[in-house]
């Protein structure tokens, strides 16, 4: 079988890899160092974005630590374990999403949290970001690829059901990320370009219908404000105008760390959460943004490498989808803050302050590391 042989051009033999300390720890050193670099930079910017509030930085560092532990633990499992458990956990996740709609708690008109006795409050939609692509990969990789039309439809159903439940909360940002994670699986599985074209055609037809029948007023408002932020400069447009001003006034090399007037004089809203990239752009300028985007690109590159190197379809689909989800975070967040996309509440991965997303992301990297470091064991 072709998959058994090491790929041509791969520098390490199986034997050396086994003795490698990183393989024993089941960690990928390249990915880990890139992530640590990103998280370190994140804490550094967070200190400025949170207006020198060390407590915020410490809380974020604790979350990073927790996330790294989760990453490390997940990396110890073989990918097959995820494949076995995914459908069951997916079922539990669906049940939890239904429960959220029935008995969930939340604020500002959205019900996103589940408070079960004896458990800490948690957000089931967050876990679905991992479970949906893994489950879709489990289903599609059971059969030959590319999948038949019927299987594509079933795969999409696996994606759309939780997506629909999350939209009901309502949480457009998360449901899009969950949905896209699943759709990436379908794409990587080899869905035909005809179907992809048809899909985009469907989207362009259904978008007006979504506008009329599905989208909530606040979501429509976000889109309208994006199209013309000046129309409501003190209300919904304020965030975009202020973040663009912060970015633009940063110039080539920025105003300097802690010197951003937009963030420190409180003109920039959410300067330590969703809009933190504007703080970086203001204080470190275009050079800072170049460095950040390059870092994200390197991480994505490494993850795609891991995906390509993976030795079974399930692992490849999972690794590819998780990588692209990570990319999607970066794209949606920076696009939103720079005024290219509507304001949907998507954090900048591993930079924005906020617990659940950092832990989910690091868990995803744990899955990727598991795929990368268990390769020999499966095939040997």
């Amino acid at each position: 079988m072709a998959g058994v042989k090491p790929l041509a051009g791969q520098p390490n033999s199986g034997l050396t890899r086994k003795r490698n300390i990183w393989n024993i720890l089941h960690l990928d050193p390249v990915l880990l160092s890139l992530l640590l670099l990103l998280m370190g930079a994140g804490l550094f910017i967070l200190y400025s974005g949170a207006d020198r509030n060390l407590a915020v930085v410490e809380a974020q560092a604790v979350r990073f630590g927790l996330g790294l532990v989760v990453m490390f633990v997940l990396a110890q499992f073989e990918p097959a374990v995820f494949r076995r458990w995914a459908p069951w956990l997916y079922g539990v996740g669906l049940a939890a999403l239904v429960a959220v709609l029935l008995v969930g708690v939340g604020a500002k008109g959205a019900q996103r949290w589940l408070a079960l006795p004896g458990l800490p409050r948690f957000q089931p939609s967050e876990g679905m970001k991992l479970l949906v692509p893994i489950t879709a990969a489990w289903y599609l990789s059971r059969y030959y690829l590319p999948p038949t039309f019927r299987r594509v439809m079933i795969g999409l159903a696996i994606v759309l059901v939780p997506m629909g439940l999350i939209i009901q909360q309502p949480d457009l940002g998360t449901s899009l990320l969950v949905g896209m994670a699943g759709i990436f699986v379908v794409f990587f599985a080899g869905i035909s370009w005809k179907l992809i074209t048809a899909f985009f055609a469907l989207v362009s037809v259904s978008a007006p219908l979504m506008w009329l029948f599905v989208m909530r007023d606040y979501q429509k408002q976000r889109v309208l404000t994006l199209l013309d932020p000046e129309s409501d400069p003190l209300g919904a447009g304020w965030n975009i105008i202020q973040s663009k001003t912060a970015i633009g006034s940063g110039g080539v090399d920025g105003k300097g760390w802690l010197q951003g007037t937009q963030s420190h004089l409180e003109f920039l809203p959410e300067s330590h959460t969703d809009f933190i990239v504007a703080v970086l752009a203001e204080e470190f300028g275009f050079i800072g943004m170049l460095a950040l985007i390059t870092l994200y690109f390197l991480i994505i590159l490494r993850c795609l490498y891991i995906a390509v190197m993976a030795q079974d379809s399930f692992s490849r689909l999972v690794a590819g989808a998780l990588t692209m989800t990570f990319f999607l975070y970066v794209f949606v967040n920076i696009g939103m803050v720079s005024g290219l996309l509507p304001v949907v509440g998507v954090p900048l991965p591993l930079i924005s302050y906020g617990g659940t997303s950092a832990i989910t992301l690091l868990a995803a990297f744990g899955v990727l590391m598991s795929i990368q470091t268990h390769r020999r064991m499966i095939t040997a």
Partner: protein
Amino acid sequence: MVWDEFKDTAGERRLFQRRALVMLVMVFLVLAGLLGRMYQLQLVEHETYTTLSDKNRVQVQSVPPPRGLVYDRSNLLLAENRPVFSVTIVPERVDDMAATLTGLQAILDVSEEDRQRFERRLDEYRRPFEAIPLSYDLSEDEIARLSVRRHEFPGVEVQAELVRHYPHSELTAHALGYVGRINRDELARIDPVNYAGTNYIGKSGIERFYEQVLHGQVGYQNVETNARGRILRVLERENPVPGEDLQLHLDLRLQRKAHELLEGRRGTIVAIEPSTGGILALASVPSFDSNKFVTGISAREYRKLSTDIDQPLFNRALRGQYPPGSTIKPMMAVAALDSGVTTREKEIWDPGYYQLQDSGRRWRDWLRSGHGWVDLIEAVAESCDTYFYEMGVEMGVDTMHHYLSAFGFGEDATLDVSGALEGILPSREWKRANRDEPWYPGDSVNMSIGQGFFLATPLQLATATSLIANRGVWVEPRLLKDIKGERSVQEFLPAQTHKPLTLKNPDDWEYVIDTMEAVMHGAKGTARRAGAGASYRMAGKTGTAQVFSLGQDEEYDAEEIRERLRDHALFVGFAPTDEPKIAVAVIVENGGGGSAVAAPVARELFDAWLEDFPAADHAPLVEPDADGGSL
């Protein structure tokens, strides 16, 4: 793991690799696109956003100039500026406005009106992060209560501003006028730049007339602020030019005296210094507390004042239009002499009435038995109506109108008195236009003793009296005496427009003044009791104006009819006769007779001005804290 179908593992790998490559290209393009966006914002449009960012950060703030102070002629302060604390709210910083307002109402004295006014302002256009005032003039207790619980009310701040205060508000309300909050109409009229940061504007009187002088020139400062509008530091500052301090001719002591003399009555006193035209006293009683109008009077209090039967808000001195009655006789005497219808020697027979034609309507003299043979001196001294009836008919309306116009009747002859009315000086044209009737000789009869259509304000009467005291030299009445600082008073005071009233025989002035002296000092003078025992000579004329007219032969008893229907008591006069220092017009509404009620009031004013007050006259304005001078 059950694989129920044959899997082409290598094929699947190649398929995945192709798809991953597509994704990699897409990722690269998208990230490059994001960088391109950054390039556009940070390099191409950098200037624009730097400007926006500075505009956010740096704000030009207006620094309102302190309003000029107003002093009386002896440098007593009449209008000053006092710090007043108000509660303001920045709506952008308040999460729950209703809860905040209710919370504030619990610890502060915020009236429903304040709250409604505030809520109206919320709906109007305003600058973002602009503080909107909720309640003015906090007490120290309220400030303390608020500061203790400040943290419960984000967006709520206490601000100090300088607000006009009148230390003698009741005394000076009608003479000075007052300032008040700028209203919508005024907002449309004023220069928005110069009034940025100013909340008050002169509403009446001196405050209104000299608004531009008192207001000054706005200054500004560039300040760095945060998004909440809190000032972090001042970057640059251009100081405002304070408003000019004004000194008035008004004498606070005489003004107080005038108010004391009218205490408990309704009436008005205007006193003018003939040589300068300076208004020494301008009293209208009852008065009101003008301070209440500055920060906004409550509707209840305003209703109380405006519906008060005694009309405290009504400025009788400038706007009260009364029939001048017999006080017009000295001016009529001037007209009759100069026009030649009478001479110093001419005598007429007064049977107690005047009849235009035999068996026609009779106009009564106030003395029903008649004065018998009277010459001009007796006619003025004893206030013989019949003499003037005849003069009036002989002169005719045109001649009377000509001379009375020269005395300033029928116009606002003042230079800087805001809101003075013109009264009515009737003429043929006036009657045709207003009554659609020709002028009848009977109208001349009424006009000759200041009745009929003829109406004059107390200020006009004082002005005309002052013209007699000046022997025909016009000096228009004015309030402004001096301006502090280098600028000259002539810059602000309008120019004089009246020509002197020259008589064919200038000595007729002395003759008419003699007749007025006879009123005060003559054996049969109507005001001889008021003139008795004075160390100086004075000239005057009493008058009584009917509040409602009586039929020809009706009689009435002043005691029997209600007090408010009694005649108005009038007096005009000046003193000393040879070198006049003060000319007055006194009206006591429903006071009864001029000689018994109004003349003694004038006498007390003369005494006060000529004898009691030290000659504090004309102390120049003292520069407070004069700086410079040393090298």
